[in-house]
């Protein structure tokens, strides 16, 4: 899952880079397009100004007659891309390239190019001025914008083609770059996944490259070596402790057996059993913590284990006057260690029976969830005292209240360590009274 998100992140980065490069290129091309467009329009405007100057000179010589002659002459030649129309007071066309006034209303006087407007006539765009000459003669002078628009259109086509090429090239470059990075990160991720699955001795094959990735791989390897060494030391230490402590205790036990009929010998045996239990618990805790996330778990019928331990303990609880109630969903499986799960329940029930009084209730429920099965153990006893709330799961933490009771403050620590070994989540839901603990076991993927 994490590998997938990592891949997504790399692709996203490559995408952002590609989009940025493409965006900048398109922006630059857009600016150029505008400059070219403005320049072409300015050129057309200059031509229009020259036309107007010429007409103004003719008008200055012989007024309307000269204009009319010049326009008729020009219309006869029929220069494409040029529009010249002169009308009389009644709107009738006197001379021009068009026999009908093209519709641009005449405003203002004189032959200045200022105020030239873009308009559409004959299905094409024009830049022109329309004036009323003294005596009420409307005059229209315009130049076609067709060449300008054709140039801009081909420029647009060029930009579009270039943009498409950029998108393709950018994506390709981004993809290649992302794949390179993803491949390097993916190797490390795959290694981390293998280690998380319990393969502590997994390492990346081949030599390290001399770059940041090689450095990262080197760091990861160094950390894994250290974890593996610590883990091995924990395992070796716990076996040695077991051996070195149990052997002398064993000799004591054998010698005690020769003392017959003395109550003190029985007491001593019980004390020794309790001592063995304490260091067994400590070893179980450190082993479960060291094995956290490691493999070696098998499918376990959680319902069956819970029902078995519940059956074992309810007899004792009922004898003590507790009201026992269990609600177990059928056939819930988890990946786990049957003995460890049974130890969790055993510790929790032991505590409940130890601290609850007659009339209290003890309930166990097991409910199926979408990705976790929730095991809930609740009693209505005194609950955790305030002075240890928050640290009740630490080793050897016991409430002042309970000093007189037997116990070593390891039960809940073991519960937590075993839950962590299984990737289960521990929560203590709020309750009015008593001790409530929920353990959410990851369900077995089918």
């Amino acid at each position: 899952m994490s590998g997938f998100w990592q891949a997504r992140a790399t692709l996203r980065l490559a995408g952002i880079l590609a989009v940025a490069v493409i965006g900048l290129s398109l922006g630059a091309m857009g600016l150029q397009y505008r400059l070219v467009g403005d320049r072409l329009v300015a050129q057309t405007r200059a031509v229009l100004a020259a036309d107007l100057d010429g007409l103004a000179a003719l008008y200055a010589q012989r007024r309307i007659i000269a204009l009319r002659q010049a326009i008729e002459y020009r219309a006869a030649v029929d220069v494409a891309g040029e529009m010249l129309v002169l009308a009389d007071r009644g709107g009738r066309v006197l001379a021009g390239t068009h026999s009908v006034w093209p519709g641009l209303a005449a405003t203002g006087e004189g032959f200045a190019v200022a105020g030239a407007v873009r308009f559409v006539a004959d299905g094409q765009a024009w830049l022109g001025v329309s004036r009323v000459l003294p005596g009420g003669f409307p005059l229209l002078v315009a130049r076609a914008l067709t060449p300008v628009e054709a140039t801009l259109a081909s420029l647009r086509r060029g930009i579009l083609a270039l943009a498409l090429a950029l998108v393709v090239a950018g994506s390709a470059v981004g993809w290649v770059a992302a794949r390179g990075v993803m491949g390097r990160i993916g190797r490390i991720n795959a290694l981390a996944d293998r280690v998380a699955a319990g393969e502590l001795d997994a390492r990346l094959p081949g030599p390290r490259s001399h770059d940041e990735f090689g450095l990262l791989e080197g760091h990861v390897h160094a950390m894994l070596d250290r974890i593996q060494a610590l883990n091995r030391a924990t395992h070796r230490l716990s076996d040695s402790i077991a051996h070195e402590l149990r052997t002398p205790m064993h000799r004591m036990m054998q010698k005690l057996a020769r003392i017959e009929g003395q109550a003190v010998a029985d007491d001593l045996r019980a004390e020794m059993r309790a001592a063995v239990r304490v260091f067994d618990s400590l070893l179980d805790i450190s082993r479960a913590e060291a094995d956290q996330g490691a493999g070696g778990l098998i499918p376990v019928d959680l319902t069956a284990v819970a029902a078995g331990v519940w059956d074992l303990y309810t007899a004792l609880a009922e004898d003590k006057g507790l009201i026992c109630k269990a609600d177990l969903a059928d056939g819930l499986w988890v990946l786990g260690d049957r003995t460890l799960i049974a130890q969790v329940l055993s510790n929790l029930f032991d505590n409940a029976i130890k601290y609850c009084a007659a009339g209290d209730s003890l309930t166990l429920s097991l409910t199926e969830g979408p990705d976790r099965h929730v095991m809930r153990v609740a009693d209505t006893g005194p609950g955790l005292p305030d002075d240890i709330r928050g640290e009740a799961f630490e080793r050897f933490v016991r409430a002042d209240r309970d000093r007189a009771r037997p116990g070593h403050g390891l039960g809940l620590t073991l519960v937590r360590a075993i839950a962590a070994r299984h990737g289960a989540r521990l929560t203590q839901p709020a309750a009015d009274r008593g001790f409530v603990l929920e353990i959410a076991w990851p369900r077995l993927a089918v």
Partner: protein
Amino acid sequence: MDRILIVEDDAETAGAVARAVREVGCLPVVCGTLAEGEAAAADDFRVIVLDRMLPGGDGVAAIARIRAGGAGALILVLSALGRAAQRVEGLEKGADDYLAKPFEPDELRARLRALLRLGTVQALDNDLLAFGELEIRLKARTVHVKRAHVAVSPKEFELITYFARNAGQTVTRMQLLENVWNLHFDPQTNVVDVHVGRLRRKLEQAGSAAIRTARGEGYVFAPLGLG
């Protein structure tokens, strides 16, 4: 006389085990290393008491080799590696029983007797186990005392069946927990006592004093006044 092989490097422990072996009426043979033990295992022994942390290796790892060598003996692992996980590991790797050090001699004797008995009593495929007035019907899973039906829970039925298979011998609490509940750790409280107590009261009410407390370690099922 039946012989029992003891593979144990600690002389004192080996001596204690040998004493227990003689007390159950067998002849002890002691080996100090794993290699010696494996070589000796080919002989005819009823039970092999096997240590784990031995000169030459882990006894549990040798179980498969011993079995492959054709030894028909039952194997009791006796080890300082006594955490629940290690006991389960030993049993999964083929041990017939697993006892953690330090052990009490009573416990070891009970285990040895149970194994010796397991070797002789073949699978109880006959339906009826009868002990005088007390009858256990395996297929119907019912218990009768003096022809009267005694209502027992499923767990109590398994309990009385286990007792019946070891009739006349001391059965320890730990044995009950391991064999009837299949739990391989030592609970803080004697949860088993309550169950045995209930079964015992039911039988007594029906008129059978079959289950008695054995001095110290456990219980004896002796419906005919045995033990």
